């Protein structure tokens, strides 16, 4: 029993310690934003590696998710003779939920893990210490541009995921299963609300981009500088990001759509 209480106390202290360090790290990261905005090339380079290089996985995944939605939606809706509303179903599912959530999960797996491994290896190979000794702040030079790039890229990738998914749904629904193309698009246009659906989806994706980038960069910066340490940090990034994304999605959905 005493052992259990000791372990509980120790783990609680470790958790709070890590929370404190990660919050301090976030504040340091955000304090460097103005200096990064003055050096747009740094930001653009990172947007390329974080955002543009995630383009393919997001596009292909979005297409398949949209195609599956088209297929499943058609079979369910046709039981009620409501297959004309397939466009609304596909678009609402994607814009409100699947777009931000699935693209954030993919982003964490593709870009988040890469960021953690990159920063962790920079630490292990003394590149970050080397920068400090050259009087260059590694937070401002390395971390903040990557954080901003993740924050900006995530909503764009989520929008891309939703757009491609809607096209995928249309390809299956209209092209294969015979739903009227005019109904598909006009129902969508009439029922998808800009504020309730699109803006809320964008807010979600910004929050997910913020949290995922924060977790990925902190885990890399905080990694034990060994091959095993970097490997564990990379795993923690994917696991913690997935939990955070899904947990925050529930909270945000409850806040945004709870009173409808």
């Amino acid at each position, binding site marked *: 029993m005493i052992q259990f209480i000791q372990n509980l106390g120790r783990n609680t202290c470790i958790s709070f310690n890590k929370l404190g360090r990660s919050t301090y790290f976030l504040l340091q990261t955000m304090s460097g934003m103005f200096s990064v905005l003055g050096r747009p090339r740094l930001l653009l380079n990172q947007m390329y590696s974080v955002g543009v290089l995630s383009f393919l996985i997001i596009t292909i995944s979005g297409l398949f998710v949209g195609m599956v939605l088209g297929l499943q939606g058609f079979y369910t809706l046709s039981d009620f003779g409501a297959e004309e509303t397939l466009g609304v179903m596909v678009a609402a599912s994607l814009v409100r939920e699947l777009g931000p959530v699935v693209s954030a999960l993919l982003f964490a797996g593709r870009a988040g893990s890469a960021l953690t491994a990159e920063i962790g290896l920079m630490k292990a*190979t003394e*590149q970050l210490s080397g920068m*400090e*000794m*050259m*009087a260059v702040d590694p937070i401002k030079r390395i971390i903040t541009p990557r954080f901003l790039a993740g924050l900006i890229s995530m909503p764009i990738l989520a929008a891309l995921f939703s757009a491609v998914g809607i096209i995928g749904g249309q390809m299956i629904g209209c092209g294969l299963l015979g739903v009227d193309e005019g109904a598909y698009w006009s129902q969508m246009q009439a029922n998808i609300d800009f504020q309730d659906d699109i803006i809320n989806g964008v807010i979600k994706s910004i929050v997910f981009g913020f949290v995922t980038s924060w977790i990925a960069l902190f885990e890399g910066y905080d990694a034990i500088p060994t091959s095993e340490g970097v490997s564990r940090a990379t795993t923690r990034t994917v696991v913690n990001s997935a939990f955070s994304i899904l947990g925050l999605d529930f909270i945000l959905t409850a806040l945004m759509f709870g009173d409808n």
Partner: protein
Amino acid sequence: MDNSVSSQDSLVSVRNLSFSRGNQKIFDNISLDFQRGKITAIMGPSGTGKTTLLKLIGGQLFPDKGTITVDGQNVHNLRRTELYNLRKRLGMLFQSGALLTDMNVFDNVAFPLREHTHLPESMIRTLVLMKLQAVGLRGARKLMPNELSGGMSRRVALARAIALDPMMILYDEPFTGQDPISMGVLVHLIKSLNSTLGLTSIIVSHDVHDTSAIADYIYVLSGGKIVGEGTPKEIQESDSEWVQQFMTGAADGPVHFHYPAKDYVDDLMSSGKRY
């Protein structure tokens, strides 16, 4: 060189330094001085905190007790901006080279110039080529760090360390893992750069022969204390058993071959335990 090192003509002065990591005491009330324009070596067995001392001098670690002054400034009392201004006047050569792996040789050497000066690119090019020429790697400017040998990486790192014309360079194990030719090149470079650029150099090393050949003064550390100091000749002739063990490479002595452990026979006989 005068055998005694006074604090008045020293660029770096360490006073009553104590530093611990967890329960392990790395330094126990030590004082050292590093004279301007000289090459001072810090030697000692692995794990005695030689690299830690460089990190303390560079302000990357904080001592538990004591002071470190560099060019009259107490490193650990400086604000962040002041510390960064001081670091611009220091160069550090890491054991691994610590080159930025996403940049080629040219950009690595240009990095501190681009970060800290507003020089035009044409001027930066000239300066970088001059630094690379000094280390003999002007022709390797387009290579990426993963295309360099260990010795070349350290020479590039050395070119980067002198990019801002520092007053002092800290070398962390510059000779470790080098073949004889690379070793000879590095020894020659450190010596010639120190004299031609008027630098002050601190070399952390456990390579007795090559470090003794270029150092003006040597400190030997062991067990958190200074166990010997003096010119290379004085160190060679020292009657301290700590120094002699280190200089002759004896497997056992004051620094034990075995890590502290319980009795060997008892250990072998205690069955049922995994470790």
